[in-house]
């Protein structure tokens, strides 16, 4: 696949999910979900709490084992070729977990070392990630002393460290103030042409702002998969919020 031209129209999707299902006992958290994301796409993953967003993302990152179905990242099956899939993936887990006693720089250096960087390249990667997420001012602070917004950006920096072709970000702007949200959205937009990006969010305006496509999931099933503009036409008011309510409320009741 490296020989393919980046903007070729028939390029294989960087993320391919087929019939992905996850059951916990009798409860089906994710039910036969299929979609593909190509380079240049920013997919907004929407849905009420408990709809299966994080579970789908965890399966995509190889953290949860699907009950059925397959997920591929740049052609690598997340179960059979797990390490290769994770090498080309940048993943921000829900809640942006980090080791509290480590400094921001120490944490990023650890992640970079695991990803096989060393010496000057490692320092460059860490500096670059700190720059992208504007964390230079707190690089030596222990993560536990940082505010929620900073912690979230540390998690984001970790996901961007190796400049992965595929980014899966679970609520990347949660806990950020409006200025920081604006910055992160700008960052995602700038990276978008080179990558396939999936973000989950509760903030519908974000979908309009950065996503080229949106999937709404409710009760573990995909109930809509379209561009934000197309989705808005689903409801007479033309507001994404009303479309979201109309599509997800029956499941919630």
């Amino acid at each position, binding site marked *: 696949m490296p020989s393919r031209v980046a903007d070729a129209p028939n390029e294989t999707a960087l993320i391919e999910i087929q019939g992905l299902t996850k059951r916990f006992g009798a409860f089906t958290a994710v039910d036969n979900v299929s979609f593909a994301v190509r380079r240049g796409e920013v997919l907004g993953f929407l849905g009420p709490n408990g709809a299966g967003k994080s579970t789908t993302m965890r399966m995509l990152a190889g953290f949860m084992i699907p009950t059925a179905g397959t997920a591929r990242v740049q052609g690598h099956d997340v179960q059979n070729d797990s390490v290769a899939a994770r090498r080309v993936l940048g993943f921000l887990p829900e809640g942006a977990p980090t080791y*509290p006693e480590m400094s921001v720089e120490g944490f990023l250096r*650890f992640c970079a070392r695991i990803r096989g960087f060393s010496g000057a390249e490692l320092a460059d990667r860490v500096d670059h990630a700190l720059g992208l997420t504007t964390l230079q001012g707190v690089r030596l602070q222990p993560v536990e002393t940082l505010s929620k917004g900073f912690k979230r950006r540390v998690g984001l920096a970790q996901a961007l460290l190796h400049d992965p072709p595929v980014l899966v970000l679970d609520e990347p702007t949660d806990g950020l103030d409006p200025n920081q949200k604006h910055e992160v959205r700008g960052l995602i937009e700038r990276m978008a042409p080179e990558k396939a990006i999936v973000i989950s969010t509760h903030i519908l305006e974000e979908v309009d702002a950065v996503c080229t496509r949106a999937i709404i999931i409710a009760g573990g099933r995909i109930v809509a998969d379209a561009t934000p503009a197309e989705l808005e036409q689903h409801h007479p008011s033309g507001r994404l919020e009303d479309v979201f309510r109309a599509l997800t409320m029956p499941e919630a009741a």
Partner: protein
Amino acid sequence: MTKTLVIASRELHAYFATPVATVFIVIFLVLQGALTFNLGQFFDRGQADLNAFFTFIPWVFLLLIPAITMRLWAEERRLGTIELLLTLPITQGQAVLGKFLAAWAFFAIALLLTFPFVIAVNILGSPDNGVIASGYLGCLLVAGAFLSVGAAMSAVTRNQVIAFVLAVAICFVFAVASNPIVNDFLAHNLPALAEFTRRIAVIDRFTDFTRGIIALRDVIYFATFIGFFLFLNTVLVDQRKAD
């Protein structure tokens, strides 16, 4: 292997970044010293060896090692960092081995800090330092065995208290399996089992080391023991990581 060592080094630094390391090492040295000098009658015996020291150390390990290992995986789950760690491009085996090596290195450091005992017997008499060295090797292997049990138990449950109690219980079974009380009882009632428990017992093997005997079968025993529990640990992490 590099990735395993990166994980191990991060873990080891984490011990010393928090008060865990200091508190643990101080308690270990005080407890081990008190047991050796008082209960072990180090001075009254009038012998230049570390037998009293080696007699008590597995029991101190039995109590303290599960206290270190109970947080190994439970803490990763509590912080959510398990999701981060296991979505980095490493195998679960590397993560398990890295954590184990860090804990083992930590115990090696704690053991090294018991050097005043060695100096003391060398000043007071002329001990067989070869026997002492082999005893220390035995200590390290017992620590490794108990650590591997504790680490696996930490992966069983996200509750640290349960992980601690399970680890103590299992280590205790392996520790007393060769005890005459247990063995005589089994020999009378279940002769087949008595033979088996003597073979799997940790203390008998350890005693060989404290007598200065480094037998290949004992080394293989410890390697198998640790290998088995690390494998169990990997399976448990795989099965339960997302619970």
